[in-house]
């Protein structure tokens, strides 16, 4: 048991899903050939001026609402001045004293316990470009495609005391931002990034220790690992009677260690001042209300709807809502086939199983919720056997297509052909006289043997119910 108590706060950067950049009309999409998505404005040519994308402002206000923040009625932009080759203007347009959102809360659930994390502020700023270092030729190249993509920075209060809480928060805001259509939250593409401020103090101490800031955390796994080893590092320092130095540290995932980037002494003076090119904005109550009302259904509301309206249990509802792509898929499916419980069971039991096995991928699914729903309906109405449904789903995953076409093509329908059923079952009973005797003698267990044989022979051409009834009837004769 450690003698220290860790305290953490987060700075989360999320790229907004606007079509265009925050101060020009270039595409804000991820990727593209280097420097193919930039213009005189975002590449900082002399004489160009930024013009604020009002859609980005709308998005940050939505972010503020979903995190229960106060939305400032008056907001303005500042310049953060520093030189770096990925920052073409040598200043980042950001917000210092007057951010759009202040003082919010986000509730998280860790091991069954609810906890409120306080949000200090959320502000809107522009992203910088990317440098590509070519060590072979000893040159660095700049790609400005990412320059000017709108970012929100979410700053929390130091309310976290374990990596689990941090992970739960990141997962929670990921869902909130995704459902509100604010950010796609793809950590691997850098559309959401997280810096962790971390300090430890002796248990029972009312004062916080000296903090370090951890950067370059590219996955939830990396966040958890970095927190773990940074706490260990700080504990060791304090155990040795030394002092933690306030500094920024970079996490090296490959080496599993953190290294110092810069200390407080060489911290830059960003010389913030109001950007004279961008007039402040004053929001009216009507504008804010219209934005608030445009926020789509959020994760908690969806869970509630599933439990209340569809009688799906809370656990299953949480699973479905836990991935927006699956949740949207599910909503599409039940608009096709109004049997939410059956659809939910098949989504969780079959589709997600295959996703977890790596057979299917929600980002590249070759069919929609509509087709999936048709398949569930065929099963529920005894048109396709469960075994054949799995075959059909596999084909849909691999090659797409509708369940009807696949069943037609591969002859996978239940035919309710009583002659075929009778002939097949009669043959099985005739070939297994001993087992038939056992059943008649009261050994119910062998019934399963007959079902299995019949299923195998019929290949889904008859419904399990029909097979069952016929075997029972035949064995009772």
């Amino acid at each position, binding site marked *: 048991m450690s003698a220290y108590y860790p305290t953490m706060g987060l700075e989360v950067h999320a790229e907004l899903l606007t079509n265009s950049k925050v101060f020009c009309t270039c595409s804000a999409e991820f990727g593209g050939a280097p420097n193919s998505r930039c213009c*005189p404005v975002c*590449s*900082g*040519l*002399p*004489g*160009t*001026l*930024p*013009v*604020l994308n009002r859609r980005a402002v709308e998005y940050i206000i939505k972010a503020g609402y979903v995190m229960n923040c106060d939305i400032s009625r008056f907001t303005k932009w500042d*310049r953060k*001045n520093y*030189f*770096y*080759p990925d920052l*073409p*203007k*040598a*200043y980042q347009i950001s917000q210092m004293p007057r951010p759009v959102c202040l003082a919010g809360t986000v509730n998280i659930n860790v091991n069954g316990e609810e906890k409120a994390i306080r949000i200090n502020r959320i502000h809107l700023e522009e992203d910088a470009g990317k440098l590509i270092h070519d060590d072979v030729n000893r040159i*660095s190249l*700049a790609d400005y495609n990412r320059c000017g993509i709108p970012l929100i920075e979410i700053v929390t209060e130091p309310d976290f005391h374990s990596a689990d809480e941090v992970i739960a928060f990141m997962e929670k805001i990921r869902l909130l931002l995704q459902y509100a259509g604010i950010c796609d939250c793809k950590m691997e593409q850098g559309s959401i990034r997280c810096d962790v401020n971390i300090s430890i103090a002796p248990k029972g101490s009312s004062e916080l220790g000296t903090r370090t800031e951890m950067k370059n955390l590219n996955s939830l796994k990396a966040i958890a690992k970095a927190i773990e080893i940074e706490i260990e590092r700080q504990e060791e320092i304090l155990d040795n009677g030394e002092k933690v130095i306030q500094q920024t540290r970079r996490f090296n995932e490959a080496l599993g260690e953190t290294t110092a980037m810069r200390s407080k002494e060489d911290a830059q*003076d960003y*010389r*913030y*001042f109001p950007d*004279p*090119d*961008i*007039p402040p904005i004053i929001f009216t109550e009507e504008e804010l209300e219209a934005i608030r009302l445009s926020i789509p259904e959020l994760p908690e509301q969806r869970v509630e709807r599933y439990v209340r309206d569809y009688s799906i249990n809370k656990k299953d509802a949480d699973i479905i809502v836990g991935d927006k792509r699956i949740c949207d898929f599910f909503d599409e499916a039940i608009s096709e086939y109004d049997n939410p419980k059956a659809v939910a069971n098949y989504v969780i039991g079959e589709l997600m199983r295959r996703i977890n096995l790596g057979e299917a991928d929600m980002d590249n699914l070759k069919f929609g919720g509509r087709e999936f729903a048709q398949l569930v309906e065929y099963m529920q109405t005894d048109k396709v056997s469960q075994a054949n449904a799995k075959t059909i789903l596999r084909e849909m995953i691999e090659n797409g297509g509708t369940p009807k076409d696949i069943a037609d093509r591969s002859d996978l329908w239940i035919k309710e052909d009583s002659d075929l059923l009778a002939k097949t079952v009669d043959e099985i009973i005739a070939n297994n006289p001993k087992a038939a005797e056992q059943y008649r003698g009261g050994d119910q267990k062998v019934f399963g043997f007959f079902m299995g044989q019949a299923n195998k022979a019929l290949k889904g051409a008859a419904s399990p119910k029909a097979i069952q009834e016929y075997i029972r009837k035949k064995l009772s004769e």
Partner: protein
Amino acid sequence: MDITRAKIRELRKALDEKQISAEELCGEYFKKIKADDTKLLSYITVTEDKAKEMAAAAQKLIDEGKSSALTGIPLAIKDNICVEGVRTTCSSKMLENFVPPYNATVIEKLNADGYVLLGKTSMDEFAMGGSNQTSAFAKTKNPYDTERVPGGSSGGSAAAVSASLAPAALGSDTGGSIRQPSAFCGVTGIKPTYGRVSRYGLVAFASSLDQIGPICSDARDCAVMLNAICGQDAHDATSARADVPDFTAKLGQPVKGMKIAMPKEFFSDDIDNDVKSAVEKAAKSLEAQGAELVECSIPGLKYAIPAYYLIACAEAASNLSRFDGIKYGFRGEGRTFEELIRDSRSKGFGEEVKRRILLGNYALSSGYFDAYYKKALALKQEIIKEYNEVFELADVILTPTAPTPAYKIGAQDNDPVKMYMADICTVTVNIATLPGISTTCGYTADGLPIGMSIIGKRFDEQTILQCADAFEQGFEPVAPKL
């Protein structure tokens, strides 16, 4: 008559009546530039080939009867306004070979009218200075006395118009950079209300103060130019939504009953007697036309210079940060980013630019921000308030444009503070975002022009044009002899 001495409206008539073609007209100016600009150095880049193409296109419009006010009119453009495909240097080594891939909004507007580009005019480096002597390429001379400065920072534009090397030019004004060189070179220049003209494509010096405006031979031509370049622009969020009137509408209307305020601080002992008496004489002439002279006070003037230089340098320090040698412009040497950026900026910028960057960064740095920058913003509010009070009593304000006429080249080289103080008459107009026009009101015994400024209410360029024009109608200007 020498056609290069004609006004824009006279050139319009000559072109439309086919007395001269657009090609011939710009040819006359190029002849003159070749003959005289070696003495003045008002142009950094002369665009003769481009001008011929533009003139041919303009002539086609004229022949089709589709000409508008500036079709076929040759113009000079200050070298901090981006023209696509034409080198735009800001008179700095930093941008010696910079060719913008886009047009400033004002250039788009002039193109739509079918203007003809004569070339890009010299200026103080990055518009920082009042003498044109901080130019890295062409230290422009005053056409009235080539041993004297033409003023600045739009000194090239003012000298070119003064010497008839262009009928009109665009300049930019951050603290007097249109008005003061206009005064020194005996021409008329107007700084419009902040927001009147789009700043898109104007290489920024101080974003909250910069404004593009015309320099012409009189107020009437200024009105014609303003009609062409004003208006809200989607590329400049600080451009104003205000309606754009016809700026020629009030020209020629009598000034009878117009209230003209003369704040006493602008007529202190710091102002040359020659200048004071010329401006006072001009006031009397307007009074004789029926205007009413009003005494008033702008006590905040004593804070104007520090407030102005703090705001302007702070913004400039940030605006000029983008010149780092990474993407375009001058690149120095270095093994690391830091070394490369440091070397590029150390060698690419001139002394005055570096001085202002240092001043600005000092004012913005933590621990000094409240004491300097914030205080300067408070002074800005105070100055705005004082102007508002004066405008409750008067329609326009009349002041000298500069404390002295054009001074000798080198006279202020070693005294930056003295040089900054010379902006005293003009900077408050930028701080208060007001429109101001400078026109010639007299000459010294040596024949140097003296300028006076008429300052108007926000978005009331019409009245200051009317007032300047009323004076000009009774004033006989003396052209420089080269």
